């Protein structure tokens, strides 16, 4: 041991000798301008007390600015922050105890908690939440990367084996556009809401039940509403087992709920391989504005189905999507600062979001009933609700409700078709909105 210390001291000596050689004054060793100003201890203590969170929450400084450099109301500096912090605790509770989409609500909630800390400026341009936000959310890269990973996790087999169920995923998009009309109507004729067409569009996309799509569109059309939209979107996706069943039951008869669907045909590997390219080419021809989302999704899916780049596909589904999920969640959470979230708009967004979800669910179910008016294999309308996407939970709900009425009726795989079609449908709807505001 002693020998070792001697060795180490020798290294020290070496540094020493080296340093002596470095005799010329260098830029580093010059005494820097001292930015620190001495104060009497009393003032210093007072200054320190003023910099505690307790003081900042009770006696906010009038010149404290928000993350965007704007002034904030006193409410947003004080109770607003306390309320927001309590709201993030509720998100934690829902995520952990109730299992509400914890993968996103925990990082979003924690980001919101950090964003509401006074004086620290964590969500500001120099804070780490702000840095992460600008790194990948302001430019919409994170939702795109998430979409790649989700694409690599998606199996289009059930849709390919029963293509016509795609229509259910189309009908469910009525949740988006119906809510859009409702939102602008209430904005125009009442004083309840006051949304621009852009904002209403960004909100209505919650009805698409796709987190990344919602975040992508919100960042694009109404970044000031991003926090509320993301929270509403993921919360409602988590609440699918609560929101959907009553609607599904109200719109179907007992006989309809017991419809058994024919077994799905086998889908060849080649079909699955060509499908992502086919969808992308169709999007190119019909709606190029939807191709960033659809392209990213189909990129992930194509890599998986190719079967020759498993290491890339695995990384997309694991390390990459996990890292991006952490960053995306924190960045979205940075938009939960009190002065941005505790506004009347948020309540309106939450209300419109659940309307959008419900309308989408109903539209999917009704579409199935309409399709049953035509000849051909009958569709169990319970799988219509899966068209909103919220993959794969909505499909599981279809299955569960179906089994309530006939324990031998396995609807899961049948519901996966409209479920993934709903993702495509929402991406198309998003493309239409982007296109209209260009």
């Amino acid at each position, binding site marked *: 041991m002693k020998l070792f210390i001697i060795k180490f001291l020798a290294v020290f000596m070496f540094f020493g000798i080296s340093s002596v050689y470095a005799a010329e004054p260098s830029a580093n060793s010059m005494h820097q301008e001292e930015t620190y100003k001495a104060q009497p201890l009393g003032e210093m203590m007072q200054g320190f007390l003023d910099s505690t969170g307790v003081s900042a929450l009770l006696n906010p400084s009038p010149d404290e600015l928000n993350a965007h450099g704007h002034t904030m109301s006193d409410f947003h500096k004080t109770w607003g922050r306390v309320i927001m912090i309590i709201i993030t605790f509720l998100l934690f509770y829902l995520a952990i105890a109730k299992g509400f989409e914890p993968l996103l609500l925990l990082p979003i909630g924690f980001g919101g908690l950090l964003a509401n800390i006074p004086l620290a400026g964590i969500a500001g341009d120099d804070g780490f939440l702000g840095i992460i936000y600008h790194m990948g959310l302001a430019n919409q890269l994170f939702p795109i990367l998430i979409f790649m990973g989700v694409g690599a996790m998606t199996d289009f087999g059930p*849709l*390919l084996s029963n*293509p*016509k169920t*795609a*229509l259910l*995923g*189309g009908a469910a*998009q*009525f949740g*988006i*556009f*119906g809510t*859009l*009309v409702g*939102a*602008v*109507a209430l*904005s*125009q*004729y009442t004083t309840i809401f006051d949304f621009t*067409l852009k904002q*209403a*569009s960004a909100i209505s996309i919650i009805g698409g039940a796709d987190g990344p799509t919602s975040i992508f569109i919100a960042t694009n059309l109404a970044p000031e509403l991003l926090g509320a939209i993301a929270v509403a979107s993921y919360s409602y996706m988590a609440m699918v087992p609560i929101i959907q069943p009553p609607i599904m039951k109200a719109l179907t008869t007992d006989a309809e709920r017991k419809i058994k669907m024919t077994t799905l045909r086998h889908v*060849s*590997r*080649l*079909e699955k391989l*060509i*499908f992502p390219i*086919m*969808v992308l080419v*169709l*999007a190119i021809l*019909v*709606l190029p504005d939807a191709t960033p989302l659809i392209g990213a999704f189909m990129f992930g899916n194509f890599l998986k189905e190719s079967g020759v780049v498993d290491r890339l596909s695995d990384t997309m589904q694991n390390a990459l999507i996990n890292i991006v999920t952490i960053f995306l969640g924190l960045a979205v959470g940075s938009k939960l600062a009190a002065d941005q979230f505790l506004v009347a708009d948020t309540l309106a967004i939450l209300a419109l979001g659940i309307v959008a979800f419900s309308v989408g669910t109903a539209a999917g179910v009704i579409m199935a009933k309409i399709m049953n008016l035509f000849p051909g294999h009958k569709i169990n309308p319970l799988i219509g609700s899966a068209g909103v996407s919220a993959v794969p939970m909505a499909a599981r709900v279809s299955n569960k409700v179906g089994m309530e009425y006939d324990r031998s009726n396995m609807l899961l795989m049948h519901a996966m078709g409209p479920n993934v*079609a709903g993702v*495509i*449908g929402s991406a*198309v*709807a998003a*493309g*239409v*909105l982007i296109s*209209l505001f260009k």
Partner: protein
Amino acid sequence: MDTNLVIEGAKFMLLGMGTVFLFLILLIVLMNAMSVIIHKFFPEPQTDLSASTVNSQKNHKTIVAAITAAITHHRQA
């Protein structure tokens, strides 16, 4: 000269739902066409299935062999 937002919203709905359904209907047509074409011209070789079964059997045998070797080794030790 105020814009009537409701009418605009209705136009959005018309265009939006129209495009969504157009897209998905075209997709359904293409999926059906692809299925026909692939099953006619590029039928999935049946051997594929048996190949993968053979493969998994091979894996299985490898595991069994490893375990047996381990046990034998242990008995000898």
